[in-house]
């Protein structure tokens, strides 16, 4: 019995670690390929490690002004996007969770309905709207359209519904108004839910490709994924550089995940189960 258990355990652990290795293998290979020479990435016969480790790809791509500017601009945009996403949606979440007001039901249905409209269905007309607003080829066109999100708002509202009302009552006796309660009670308590929504927002912005491709034409404003896709199609023969650039562009998202891992894992528990 004990032996059977030990064998079972050994099998479980080997499968577990094997799958983990397969799972991160493509990324490890990507990072290592960044140290390879111009065309060594697809050398025949296949080689996992470079013949000679070249750090130069990483240095060259980082010192390429277009790449580092695109990395920086995307980062700044993503931070602004994340901050305003949290603010705008949490305000609405708080209002829907706690306040009574006229037309509440109608407004609620209106906001929630937008969740079911896929971005592809409004691709062309969103483009027309932003071009009429003269937003094309500005950072605003990347930030504004995606900021309000019924899904994020809904998620935060579920969280706010669980905050005890007694906390507010105490503040109200002290004369705090509704906005102050949001500012001084709900915002500070929002940390766990902000981490989950914030990371989703940051990732969405950082990884977005289609919308920037449609709306940004000046190379100075290229977003990082747009830069990589352009690099791939225009300078595809410089594979080592492309791999180094891709690795660097993936690092911020991986670091963010590793840093907030615990919260994300907790968030997953909620998301699948409503």
């Amino acid at each position, binding site marked *: 019995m004990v032996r059977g258990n030990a064998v079972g355990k050994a099998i479980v652990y080997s499968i577990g670690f094997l799958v983990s290795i397969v799972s991160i293998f493509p990324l490890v290979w990507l990072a290592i390929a960044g140290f390879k020479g111009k065309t060594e990435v697809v050398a025949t016969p296949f080689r996992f490690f470079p013949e000679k480790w070249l750090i130069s790809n990483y240095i060259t791509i980082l010192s390429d002004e277009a790449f580092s500017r695109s990395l920086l601009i995307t980062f700044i945009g993503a931070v602004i996007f994340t901050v305003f996403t949290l603010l705008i949606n949490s305000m609405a979440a708080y209002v829907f969770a706690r306040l009574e007001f006229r037309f509440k039901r109608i*407004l609620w249905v209106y906001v929630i309905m937008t969740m079911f409209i896929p971005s592809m269905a409004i691709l062309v007309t969103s483009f027309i709207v932003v071009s009429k607003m003269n937003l094309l080829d500005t950072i605003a066109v990347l930030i504004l*359209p995606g900021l309000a999100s019924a899904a994020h708002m809904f998620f935060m509202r579920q969280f706010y519904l669980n905050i005890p009302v007694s906390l507010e009552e105490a503040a109200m006796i002290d004369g705090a108004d509704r906005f102050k309660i949001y500012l001084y009670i709900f915002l500070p308590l929002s940390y766990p839910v902000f981490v989950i929504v914030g990371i989703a927002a940051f990732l969405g912005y*950082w990884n977005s490709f289609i919308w920037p491709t449609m709306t940004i034409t000046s190379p100075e404003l290229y977003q990082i994924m747009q830069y990589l896709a352009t690099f791939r199609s225009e300078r595809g023969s410089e594979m080592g550089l492309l791999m180094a650039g891709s690795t660097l562009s993936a690092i911020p998202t991986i670091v963010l995940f590793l840093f907030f891992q615990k919260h994300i894992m907790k968030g997953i528990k909620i998301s699948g189960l409503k």
Partner: protein
Amino acid sequence: MGKIEQTKKYDNGTAYLMLSPIVILLTSFVAVPFVYAIYISFYNWGFYQDSVFVGWRNFYLVLTDQLFWHSIVVGLKFALYVIPLQMLLSFLFAHVIRAMGRRSSGIVKTSIYIPTVISGIIASIIFGFIYHYDGGIANYLIGLIGIEKIAWLNDVSTALPSLAVPAIWLGFGISALIMLAGLLDIPDSYYEAADMEGANAFQKMIYITIPLMKNVILFLLVTGFAGALQQLELPMIMTGGGPVNATLTPNLHIFNHFRNDVEMGYTIAAALLMFVVLGSIAAFIFRILNSDKAIDG
């Protein structure tokens, strides 16, 4: 007097003020474009011309376009490659994680989740090289067991399944962890009772695990299906829809029209039809699973 009472209870001012950003943004960038899309789908509309009312013509053009139907078939096939495999693998692997110790399951969870934060573009770049004919790992590995090299992305029969692999890679971690959360939610006592009755592992899975995880499985099925059917970045970057349109997903088909056409009627009508198709399929899946659920109470 009644009025004062009401203003005390109702916080209309604060509520509207705090709601205005989300309402204004959703109106400008979702509701208006949606209504506008429905409106101009009945017009012959272009960026540089006057619009002419054409009735249902745009929809007629889309529905009689073989390429549109072809792209729907490609999308469905793609979902058929991705979803069953991803569901099965993540369901089984959730059991593996559950059986592991705390520490090692932590490491495993982290490493399978990492691909989830990677963009479709980077995945396309990586897997484009993995499938490279001469120096790619895929051909190297099948070479080890004596199989001839395959032109993965350039062969009509292998191109679409080849795109399914990165799609599964990107989504596996999150679905396995959601499955795990569902598993951990089932009380141990159910299994203990089944043990007393002498149930084997297979029976426990059929009679306890799967029925109790129905909601989780349904959630993953619907979101996964919608995601797979709407795939755009992988085929766009890796194959450009080729060879011979074998990987032309519906969204890629629509996006190509957006980029190439002067008239936007077709594009908008196709996008709206996709929205209807997607919605009905999701509703259909819900229907099947719900009626099933009603039977076992």
